[in-house]
């Protein structure tokens, strides 16, 4: 447990110390979809940074420590997810300043739970991918063929209604779709699938991805 805590704290400390990252996130505009985007990108970045960390950084130190890899993976993933949620929070406040008003103040904490789920899902996915990559070049491929489609297909910028059938099918296998829909439902009252379904899907995908990430992480050789 202490292991998970120190590794989590490490991610958060690093984030708070790198002010550029915080300020840059303020430059991006509003809407629930953009909160989803911020969380997705931050989570994926923090996970994929482990590739560098494995060769030139602290990750290698943790790989030879006498603790279960699962604890390391969970500590890192929660750290990455926390940073992503903090980013999402900043965007949320920006949207408030810009005039956005959530339909109900009580729905806001729930919306943040959904945001946290999105963050955990993509941090875990990034860990799963990062564990298998050997070269930094692989990262661009992940950005182009995974992160961007996840974002564009999620309904973050386009509505889910009235899509061609093929495209609609794609949006439904994208976990971020349910995340954005959940946040939108809770903050604006307009939802496509209904918040309960969104949460069920996110929880299931979350469990699946964390298991996948933990398994892949346990297989890392040097």
């Amino acid at each position: 447990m202490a292991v998970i805590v120190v590794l989590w704290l490490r991610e958060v400390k690093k984030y708070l110390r790198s002010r550029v990252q915080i300020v840059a996130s303020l430059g991006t505009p509003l809407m629930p979809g953009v909160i989803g985007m911020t969380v997705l990108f931050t989570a994926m970045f923090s996970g994929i940074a482990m590739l560098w960390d494995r060769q030139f950084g602290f990750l290698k130190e943790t790989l030879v420590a006498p603790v279960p890899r699962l604890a390391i993976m969970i500590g890192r993933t929660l750290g990455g997810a926390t940073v992503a949620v903090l980013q999402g929070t900043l965007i949320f406040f920006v949207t408030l300043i810009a005039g956005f008003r959530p339909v109900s103040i009580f729905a806001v904490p729930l919306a943040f739970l959904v945001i946290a789920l999105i963050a955990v899902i993509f941090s875990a996915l990034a860990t799963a991918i990062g564990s298998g990559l050997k070269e930094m070049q692989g990262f661009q491929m992940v950005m182009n063929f995974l992160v961007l489609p996840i974002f564009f297909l999620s309904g973050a910028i386009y509505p889910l209604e009235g899509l061609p059938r093929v495209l609609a099918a794609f949006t439904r296998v994208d976990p971020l779709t349910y995340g954005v829909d959940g946040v939108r439902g809770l903050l604006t009252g307009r939802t496509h699938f209904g918040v309960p379904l969104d949460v069920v899907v996110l929880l299931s995908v979350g469990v699946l991805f964390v298991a996948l990430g933990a398994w892949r992480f346990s297989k890392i050789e040097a």
Partner: protein
Amino acid sequence: MSDRPIIRVQHVVKSFGKVTAVDDVSFDVQAGEIFAFLGPNGAGKTTTIKMLTTLLRPTSGSLELDGLDPATHQTEVRRRFGVVFQDPSLDSELTAWENMDIHGVLYHVPRQVRRERCEALLRMFELWERRDDLVKTFSGGMKRRLEIARGLLHTPKVLFLDEPTLGLDPQSRNQMWTHVRRLNQSERVTVFLTTHYMDEADRVADRIAVIDHGRIVATGSSAELKAQTGTDSLEAAFLALTGTTIRDESATAADQMRQVARVWRR
């Protein structure tokens, strides 16, 4: 102290696809000695260390560290060694103290002991005054010293040092070896190091194994190696044993990343 060697490697082979990095290597390291693995680039030094430190499994053969197999008793073996890798493994966004402290938590060192050991080691490696500075502000030599200090925090039986002086100036190298020697004596820690600097192996190591193309070509003290090859310096002995041709290795993913790292670092 028992007569059992602290490290025992028998007929170990490690191949990656068609490439055999370590080819039927056997050697023993006695508790308390400073043992050097000497060999040209790509000889299999790092691969051997990775197998001993549980990061790689051998293709065949057996390894033992303090009587335990690193492949099957990972956690127990990990408690028994400290390691300084060829590439830095500090967190440069954290302070020296934080780096030490996290290590202590990872190795389950009780809080009180952790504080005392951190302070003692940071003082010994002359880093105490800088303990609250971010590691990214440290020089190469300071980072290396911090890594060694960290590796010793959990009082390991064996300390692995993979090319610990690579890229350091002669002053830092000299200071580093003084520290290592002192530690070997005061903490009774066995030191397993790799290097391709002859003078270092000559000065520091009790025993040297010369490795080339994944095979051990000679083992003995510096004097024995010189006598065996009829040469008067370890450098000449080394060349006599490994030949003078330059090795061209193919670049690995790690090498490519090191290139990028070099560009981005100051």
